[in-house]
């Protein structure tokens, strides 16, 4: 018996010493884990690109979130009968899960930006490049927070990446706290970054342009003017001579585009269809029109059609007929397709060459917007300064395209008349670019405008709900008033 123990013990000791605990350590051969990432400049850049990638889900190309929140939810658009799943946006019948996608996309973007900001700092690399990458990540973080705060108000504030489960139940911060972070981040970016950048990446001017937009939304006109002027004075931008070029795929990243979401033709932005071309509905499938695609999904509202003054700009924005794509003689009118219910479609984003696989970029902010921000801001801060006419008339001049009777230059308006004029100018110049709803909200005209259209909008609907699922998951999250 003694021997038994002796042998057993010896062998067990051998087992123990030969045991190779190495095999319990995980080092994934085909993935990077945090332990092996953020080691070099190229890692920092890859992390930054990972943060940029959320732009696609936050804005979602031409027809994504940007337009659900900015346009469908306002007065310029209405839903055509082909797409039935978007009625809720237009009719204010959405429930408190509607913001789920925006919430998770923005917070993913914020977390990724926070990783870049935190870990890039520890990388041994060229100081200037390091500072640039961090500043760019801050601008992205600000951009994502701006989407959240104007949609839902104060949201949880994160300035560091999530590393464990401790801090994932943070409560909401105040709106001011969020705006403080946004403006601080964007200011850092506007001072740190270069004036120009590779198309798609943020530079100092983009940061300034975004700041102008943020301050405008907050009603801080002095700062809005300061940053809009910064962009104007940079001398890097101008209007395209032709209004139609702002959505021309051949003029991507052009002189007027300050920041665009980038697409490759045939690859990513193939959901242009909801504004632009889509298969023709109705009884035409066996006819000459069988293979035609034409605008559908959403349509310009009757008010938009009625109130948009005749101009080249208007004709580049909406159309009541569609010329056959092959150039074969033949024109089909919206009247024919929709029996008069939707006499116009949105032609602004048509890409006749690529149709459903259009590689058109989505514009996030462009020079005309900055001119109008500057004009609006100066009207509030020094109403007598005639620079406001210079800026707004530049936009109108391009829009009338040489037809002097259309959209004549403005002059001699009262401060209040100018307020109305600049808002209307924004409405038609930036039509369907995701700005309208925010313009109405910041000017306090949202409820009255939509009620005038016969929509049932409750007062509390100025803010969207916090996603219901998130409120259930995080007991510290308080729902917005009215959405409980």
């Amino acid at each position, binding site marked *: 018996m003694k021997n038994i123990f002796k042998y057993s013990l010896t062998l067990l000791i051998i087992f123990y010493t030969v045991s190779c605990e190495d095999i*319990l350590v995980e080092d994934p*051969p085909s993935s990077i884990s945090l332990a092996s990432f953020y080691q070099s400049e190229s890692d920092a850049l890859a992390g930054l690109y*990972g943060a940029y990638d959320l732009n696609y889900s936050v804005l979602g190309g031409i027809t994504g979130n940007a337009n659900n929140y900015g346009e469908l939810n306002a007065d310029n658009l209405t839903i055509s009968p082909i797409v039935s799943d978007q009625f809720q946006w237009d009719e204010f019948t959405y429930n408190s899960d509607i913001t789920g996608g925006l919430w998770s996309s923005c917070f993913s973007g914020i977390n990724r930006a926070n990783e870049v900001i935190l870990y890039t700092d520890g990388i041994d690399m060229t100081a200037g490049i390091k500072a640039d990458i961090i500043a760019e990540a801050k601008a992205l973080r600000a951009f994502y927070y701006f989407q959240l705060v104007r949609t839902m108000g104060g949201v949880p504030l994160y300035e560091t990446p999530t590393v*464990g489960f401790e801090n994932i139940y943070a409560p909401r911060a105040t709106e001011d706290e969020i705006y403080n972070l946004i403006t601080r981040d964007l200011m850092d970016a506007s001072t740190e970054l270069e004036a120009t950048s590779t198309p798609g990446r943020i530079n100092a001017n983009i940061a300034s342009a975004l700041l102008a937009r943020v301050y405008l939304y907050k009603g801080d006109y002095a700062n809005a003017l300061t940053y809009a002027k910064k962009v104007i004075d940079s001398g890097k931008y101008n209007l395209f001579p032709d209004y139609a070029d702002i959505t021309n795929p051949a003029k991507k990243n052009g002189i007027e585009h300050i920041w665009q979401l980038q697409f490759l033709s045939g690859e990513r932005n193939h959901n242009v269809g909801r504004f632009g071309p889509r298969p023709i509905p109705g009884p035409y499938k066996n006819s000459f029109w069988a293979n035609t695609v034409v605008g559908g999904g959403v349509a310009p509202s009757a008010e938009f059609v009625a109130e948009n003054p005749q101009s080249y700009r208007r004709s580049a924005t909406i159309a009541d007929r569609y010329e056959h794509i092959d150039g074969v003689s033949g024109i089909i009118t919206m009247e024919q397709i929709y029996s008069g219910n939707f006499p116009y479609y949105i032609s602004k984003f048509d890409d006749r060459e690529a149709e459903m696989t259009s590689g058109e970029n989505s514009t996030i902010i462009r020079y005309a917007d900055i001119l109008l921000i500057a004009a609006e801001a100066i009207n509030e801060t020094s109403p007598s300064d005639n620079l406001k006419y210079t800026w707004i008339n530049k936009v109108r001049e391009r829009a009338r395209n040489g037809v002097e009777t259309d959209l004549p230059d403005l002059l001699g308006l009262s401060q209040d008349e100018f307020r109305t004029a600049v808002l209307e100018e924004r409405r038609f110049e930036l039509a369907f670019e995701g700005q309208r709803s925010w313009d109405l909200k910041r000017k306090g005209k949202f409820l009255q405008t939509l009620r005038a259209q016969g929509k049932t909008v409750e007062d509390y609907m100025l803010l969207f709900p916090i996603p219901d699922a998130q409120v259930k*998951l995080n007991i510290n999250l308080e729902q917005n008033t009215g959405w409980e």
Partner: protein
Amino acid sequence: MKNNSSKCMFSIKINRNILKILMVMKLTTFFFLISILSVAARGYSQHARLNLSLQNASIQELFQEIEKQSEFNFFYKDDQINVNKMVSIEADNSLIGEVLNEVFKNNDVSYTVVNKVIVITPRKEQQNFNVTGTVTASTGETLPGVNILVKGTQTGTITGMDGKYSIEVPDANAVLVFSFIGYATQEININGRSMINIVMEQSSELLEEVVAIGYGTMKRSDLAGAVSSVKGEDLESTPANTFVQTMQGRAAGVDIKAASNAPGGGMRIRIRGTNSINASSEPLYVIDGFPIENNNTTPQGAGYNALSPSPLSSLSPNEIESIEVLKDASATAIYGSRGANGVILITTKRGQIGKSKIDFDYSVNVASVRNRLDLANAEELATLSNEWAVNNGQTPYYDGVNKPLPKDLGEGTDWQDVIFRTALTHNYNLSISGGTENTKYLLAGSYLDQDGIIIESNFKRAGLKFNVDQKVSDRIKLGVNMNANRTVNDAVPSEGTGYRNDSPLWSALTTTPVIPVKDEDGNYVHNHDEAFKIVENPVSIAKTRSDITYKTRILTNAFTDIEILNGLTFRANFGADFINSKRNIYVPNTAETQAMPNLGIASVGAVQSLNWLTEYTLTYNKNFGSDHRLTALAGYTAQGTKIENVFSRTDDFSTNKFEFNNLGAGSDPRPSTSSATEYGLLSYIGRVNYAYKDKYLFTGTIRRDGASKFGTDNKWGIFPSAALAWRMSEENFLKDNYILSDLKLRTSYGITGNQDIGSYSSLALYNTAKPIIGGSPVIGFYPNRIPNPDLKWERTSQFNVGVDAIFLDGKFNLSAEYYIKNTSDLLLNVTIPNQSGYNSSVQNIGEVENKGIELTLGYNNTFGELKWNSNFNISFNRNKLVSLPEGTERLIFGLGRGETGQGHSIAIPGESLGSFYGYHFLGIWQTEEEITAAGNTVGGKNRPGLPKYEDLNGDGMKYNDDERKIIGDPNPDFIYGFSNEFTYKNFKLLIFINGSYGNEIAYLNRIALLAQPQKHNVLQVYYDEHWTGPGTSNTIEAPLSNSGEWKNFSDRDIEDASYLRVKTISLSYNLPKNFMGVDWIRNAQVYLAGENLLTFTKYSGFDPEVDLYSSSNVQMGVDNAAYPTAKSIRIGVKLGF
């Protein structure tokens, strides 16, 4: 040859105390090699002929002459045999036996011939009574190594290689005791006979059965845990192509369902219910002591959705000796963090002591589809299409101008006719095995060629198996197992319905019968003529595309046992399971994908997987006095796996010549991908079995597992269990009871784990994003989750109580079990607040409970020449999800499409996992008044002629999430298996019945097949019973809806899937020994078996045994154009030599 001449190659020094038989045994080490090389040598002594003419030669000369002429060698000892004695002999073409009998006729010498060795020993002087004879098994084979003891003495012998024995007994009235493992011991009164031939009956005594228990074996009578066994011979009597199929219904508590009946298709196997939601609930499979990984090793394929064949389909059922199913914690805790789902131990056949045997087995199986769906024909579908057009304000399609009128279309094409076929399966098995006390070997080859019942589907498997056990010395044994096989799966896409889903089966159900298979020029007709190009010609799919997966698997291990001290054995075991597979896909540019032209798609993918094992154990076996028996086990094992994947695809080929063999020839190359995954496990194991007076049995088990898959703070877990059993029948008050032969009560409790999740789940990994910057995609990395250093195994605690009883000396036996199993710390993909930047994280939250009862009843009896053997088992399992993480009310799984976008299967606390979740169908809206009265506006989904669902939240029928509820349960109330075997003379009849009661199926095919006749074909019943106006139908809607193919999933689509199936009827006949007039055939059997010939069910789909998403724990009982079950007839022959 003289044994004292050391130069002789066979020289052996014979210890005078060694019995001659042992000497023979040692020699067989060498014979083994010879016999493997030359099987024919086996019968040498019976065939070799000698010609001798010697006058007054010495015996030594005679021996030399014989050695010269033949392959015989002589062994003897100089001091015992006088080889100088003179003899004379004339032999003309004589057998060795005739010669030797003549030579030793009057001598004091006897001889024994063992193959080619002749051992000469002095004949004993003692004038004891001599008994000789042959021991055979009931099959007629001779049995070597049988112990024969003169009762009441120490005198004994064992049978030789040929089953013959010779024993001297003190008197003619002595009693001989014949015993052999696995056979019933017999006591024979000599009664003066000098020749006694014995037929050993295989032990029907369950108690003597030896069962595998993981890292060892045990007598069934000593078991304290819950273990079911299925013997290889039972599997053989229900022939099937994969062993998992043959196990169905055989063991209580084991629920097996075919996931896909495609050749080589997967199975869902659950032991005592489903424990997990996100981790696997499949049992652990251990083949000959090697715990294998059941990973999917089918490479990726371009645009294909054929289910991958089950990894277990690589094992031929003919190679299996026995299967043990370890069910309770006492039995499975030895497998620690992998034991929670139960363990299936597969012991493959090995060589036995005895003459070399050759077994050959061939069968051909003829299969056809069991059932077809009744679909509309061309005229009916066209009529419905027109009706749909009119209902939607359009002109009829089939108007007699653009298209023919419905009445001119007739029957059209019956696509089911075209894609189903009568399929043949050929199955060949050949094995050669044999052995001596020192060396046992088995060499087996198998080949399976199985056609599926859908055209163009085929599965082939070729296997080669070899194992050898070698005794090196009295204390050292070695063994090697090698199992190599290759499978070729030539698949057709076969699973899943839905919009534009290309599978021959789904297309056969939905492609319009209006179009023919081919046009006049012999080209396939594509479905372009219909209003929407939806479904592709199923024959074109099957015939023009290729999807072939080759898989080579080598499972091999080598072990050595060293008996260090008496009772203490050390075992080292090393093994590897290597899998290499490649998948080739080509879709020619003449084919269409999703009814759209394509330019040619080619892809190749490969997977390589290596799973290695190192294992050291110490086993100590000791009896202390007659009352205490102890077996203790301690050990260490390490196991690791690495899997690598590559995939490459190119589109757009100008020629179809290269198929998948030249991806460079395509003009649209896609990015190639590759990946690799590794994981490992380190373990310490221990087990103690203790029996007191054979009455009180105790088993204690512990395993400490370290698993790489877990978080850095929780790498190691401890899994203990204990079991107690009381053999009441050993107590005095029951001991000599006539009725009750054995009675054992047992109970166990223990904790096991489940670690079957993906590697790296506890780490934050970086995924790749490709945003476009500066006009081209750039690579970005982003973290995919929060690291969870606390991540650990799922923890299952199980309590088991059981009783085993044997009545009337084995005529009846009964086993009953009750268990309650609680799984907590579920490895769940938990939704976390998205503000963290992440949507979910793998955490240990949630709890599932399974409890149940299992009953097994056996009956064995003999009525004259009729033997009747029955076995019935029934299992009741109740599954309940106890809790989910806070904030998660329920998890919904299933296809996301259209209005059923939220899925069909649910995990919600308080209900069984996988309960069906959907709307409650109330009928059809008859009038607009009815709609408005119910609080709805008329239009959209609420129109007369469309389905009406229950309004659960009182807001009218908006069909949102609030209107859904639990509408069915795929978990059966009970499952059962009933086998009946009748043996009469040479005939054996087996009737095997199995079934399931109380489970339901989500019949998803039906949803699409009752809608949109303008797009695709529909069920006949749609044409017959659809709504055409108020009061015409309250079950099937009008052809009207245009809101996408996927309608609301409701209880109308749930069907009772209870079934009772005569799974196998087989009749076999053993040809009489002298049938062929040759004696070298050991046995010959022909058999005829029918599979699935009779099924009783109410289910209206192809077959109630369907489980498409077998890898999901929550989507159960879903029929979504699954490859249907076949019924088949098999004819086979078995030959033994």
